[in-house]
């Protein structure tokens, strides 16, 4: 009983600033890439293009975040019980809303883009519509009554959710990169791919198990993983990541130009 009386208060006092810090970090992650791109190379096609593309970039950032976070319980900031479902779903519907604003905004402000609703539109636009349809399905199929109808078994929901989210992520990436709005300077590519490689490798390393957990190696000094990894490994890891970024961004840059 004493445990139960004591615990919640201390948690409350500790987590509120942490939560705010986390939300601030999320906002920086969502807005900084686009703002810095805008700084390097504005679009020069009227401010509504920049605005709608900004909305699109935030949606893309959310897409990557949702993919990594995977609606799982988390220790920092604490998400337990049904809270992490709620958080995942909230952000998913925000993503759906933002990507709809991005797409329908252009359809309204630039009526010529209705041309792009046909199957002869460029590949990066076909990818975009496909990804949007996937978003709609991913969101709708997760609402409980519909989920039970569409996916009787839990496994079929998990499988389709994972598959469609991977496809949607790849389609979005192609859409952002191949539209070629901002990525005709190497600096922009390098910045963008740095972010992407870091995020994806963070995800991959974390999934490989606690031994290789990236965040634990780097930040959690009293975990086993931290002490197991020698001091020489960390610079190697870092250099490897940087090399990976250079290769990735260079390759994409050459492929696209």
């Amino acid at each position, binding site marked *: 009983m004493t445990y139960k009386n004591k615990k919640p208060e201390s948690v409350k006092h500790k987590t509120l600033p942490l939560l705010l810090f986390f939300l601030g970090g999320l906002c920086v992650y969502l807005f900084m890439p686009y703002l810095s791109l805008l700084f390097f*190379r504005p*679009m*020069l096609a*009227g401010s509504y*293009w920049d605005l709608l593309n900004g909305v699109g970039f935030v949606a893309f950032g959310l897409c990557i975040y949702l993919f990594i976070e995977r609606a799982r319980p988390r220790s920092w900031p604490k998400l337990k019980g049904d809270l992490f479902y709620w958080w995942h779903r909230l952000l998913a519907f925000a993503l759906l809303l933002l990507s709809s604003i991005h797409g329908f905004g252009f359809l309204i402000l630039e009526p*010529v883009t209705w041309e792009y609703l046909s199957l002869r539109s460029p590949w990066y636009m076909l990818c975009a519509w496909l990804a949007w349809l996937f978003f709609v399905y991913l969101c709708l199929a997760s609402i409980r009554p519909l989920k039970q109808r569409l996916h009787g078994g839990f496994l079929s929901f998990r499988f389709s959710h994972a598959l469609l989210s991977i496809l949607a992520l790849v389609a979005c990436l192609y859409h952002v990169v191949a539209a070629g709005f901002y990525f005709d300077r190497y600096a922009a590519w390098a910045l963008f791919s740095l972010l992407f490689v870091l995020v994806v490798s963070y995800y991959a390393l974390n999934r490989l198990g606690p031994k290789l957990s990236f965040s634990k190696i780097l930040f959690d000094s009293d975990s086993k993983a931290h002490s197991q990894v020698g001091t020489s490994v960390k610079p190697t890891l870092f250099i490897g990541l940087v090399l990976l970024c250079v290769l990735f961004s260079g390759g994409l840059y050459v492929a696209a130009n």
Partner: protein
Amino acid sequence: MWRQISWAAGLLLIFAALASAFLSARKESLREAPLLEVYFAHKDHNKVGCANCHHNYVDGTGRQYGCYQCHKEDETVNLLVEEQFHGLCRDCHRDLKHMGKESGPVRQCGACHKPDTQP
């Protein structure tokens, strides 16, 4: 085991058939797409050398047609109408704008795709 493999192979086949049907429908539709109206006035472009755009005047592709007609009929380029023309017009406008000079529309579809009022 064999059951799963034959299922996967069947799905793959169906997917390949759908994809190839989609690709050929896309090609057909691209070839038959009507040209959009484009506003283009030579007097806006009198500081630009003719051969920058009329590449056919210098590289021997032929002078018998105008740009749009030839690019629409020539089998080697008629899938690339959008890519090539947008590449030409937009890139020049964009690069000039980045140098701080006056130029035409970059991405605003409506500024180019509107009725041609002057020949």
